[in-house]
């Protein structure tokens, strides 16, 4: 065969950081642009957290007493906040599975963009959507009597910790979205493990009330560190090492799962 192998003029095959940023913004822009057009998703992303705030507060509020807290809402709300932003990360796997099933991932992978930007853009836009959800939830919590008992800075730090942790889980979800074969599978695979993670923790109860082994699990659960940190900061209590532990987990999640997801992405095709 007459093959032209004179591959003399080959351009730059290396992607600069600037391209990663630009392409990630384009990709995040795509998702944010369609967000207002996806009314169902917006409603569900908002209703569920608000429902949890109201349900837990009114159903359990009367019957659960936590030592050191006169008002269960002050104990509960940081847990609900944490659970809701963590649940919000599940949209990452659903969105990626959807793009994959529609052939959009193949299209994006055939473009000369920084490949990692597809996942970075996705997780960033999911983070922004999660912030919207969080603000709505916070307003409802304030309406039923929740207050920042500590400083505003402490409350801000608590909020950032929650969002950072959910961002870390978004990368776990990215890997799930790339690994499953359908949107439906992404939906269950993304959600199912988050129930034990958020319930076997200090989010709704005092872990010392749990039986021995379960208590150990709950106390080791990164979600417990996150909730403890947020709760202490919102209520102006001493944080112990919970803030550092929660931060370390979030950094670890991003580092490990971003690496795995991006590697997986480069081999994924619908």
């Amino acid at each position, binding site marked *: 065969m007459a093959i*032209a192998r004179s*591959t003399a003029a080959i351009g730059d*095959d290396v992607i600069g950081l600037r391209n990663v940023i*630009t392409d990630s913004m384009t990709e995040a822009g795509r998702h944010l*642009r*369609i967000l207002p057009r996806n009314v169902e998703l917006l409603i569900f992303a908002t209703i569920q957290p608000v429902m949890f705030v109201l349900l837990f507060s009114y159903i359990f509020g009367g019957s659960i007493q936590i030592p050191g807290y006169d008002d269960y809402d002050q104990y509960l709300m940081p847990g609900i906040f944490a659970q809701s932003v963590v649940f919000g990360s599940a949209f990452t796997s659903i969105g990626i599975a959807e793009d994959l099933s529609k*052939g959009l991932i*193949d*299209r994006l992978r055939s473009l000369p963009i920084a490949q990692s930007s597809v996942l970075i853009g996705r997780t960033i836009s999911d983070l922004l959507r999660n912030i919207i959800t969080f603000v709505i939830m916070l307003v409802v919590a304030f309406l039923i009597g929740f207050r920042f008992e500590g400083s505003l800075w402490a409350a801000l730090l608590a909020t950032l910790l929650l969002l950072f942790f959910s961002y870390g889980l978004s990368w776990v979800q990215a890997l799930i979205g790339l690994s499953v074969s359908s949107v439906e599978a992404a939906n269950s695979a993304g959600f199912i493990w988050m129930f034990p993670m958020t319930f076997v923790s200090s989010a709704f109860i005092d872990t010392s009330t749990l039986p021995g082994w379960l208590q150990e699990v709950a106390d080791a659960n990164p979600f417990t560190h996150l909730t403890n940190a947020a709760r202490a900061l919102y209520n102006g209590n001493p944080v112990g090492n919970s803030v550092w532990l929660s931060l370390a987990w979030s950094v670890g999640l991003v580092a490990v799962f971003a690496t795995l997801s991006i590697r997986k992405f480069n081999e994924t*095709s619908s």
Partner: protein
Amino acid sequence: MSAVVAEGLKKHYGDTRALDGLDMEVAQGTVYGLLGPNGAGKTTAVKVMTTLVKPTDGRAWIDGIDVAENPRVVRTRIGLTGQYAAVEERLTGRENLELIGRYFHHAGTERSARAIELLAMFDLTEAGDRVANTYSGGMRRRLDIAMSLVARPSVLFLDEPTTGLDPRSRLAMWDFIERLGDEGTTVLLTTQYLEEADYLAEQIMVIDRGRKIAEGTSDQLKDQIGGDKVRVTIVKPENIQRAKEAIAPLCVGTVEQDPQSALTLTAPINAGGGVVPGIIRALDDAGVDVVDVEVRRPTLDDVFLVLTGHAAEAAGGDGEDG
């Protein structure tokens, strides 16, 4: 320089050999058809050549650039329209096109100018500001192809561009694809439809089980498999010889009697129609009463039967020509 070259491409998934040593060469500015049933390896070949999948063995070049070594450079030269209409459903047609321009870092004015141009080219100007999930299947496919053309690729890959379209949309799509070829874009098209490859492609490769089984122009392939055939069924068996003599001058090969029927003749004819009225007239003039005159075009199944000795089994119901 050839636009696309593949050398001994192999892709194995466990025991499945999706590609089993495929060689290919596509000349610049031509439309090349990759014809085969489902599971023949067409899509895998496209995925390897568009950098989506790494081959187990073998190499491929786009404009002389190695797809495995310089995937990013290759991506600046190709456009890919996969089997799904990969459009963002909640964006309008125009926004979809501008989005691709953004990925290519085109300036704002260039993005909108190119979008306008492509909308017009694909007859989507009126629908341009509607969100894509209101589009029909054919419109979606057209938008999909338009999106692949935003950066004026040197090679456009079209993976089964008309599968799932109704016959009218398919014909319209053929028109658009034909125009691309006229504009000098190299097009590599995969299809399950012999008619489609015949209509669009200058050069056709028939593949099966990840291997090439035939290659040539549509005429060359038809010569191999026998081209169009006419099948004449008459009323009285004693007239069969007279019928044979009457239609022989209108056919391009020997007129044969069907081994299973004393009333039926088959004969190869030139494609393109116009022969049937003549045949009926000739039979009428010879005083032969006719039950049925039927023209049979070779289908993918015929191609396979002749070239491989087995039917295009994986194609199933999709294998029939429209």
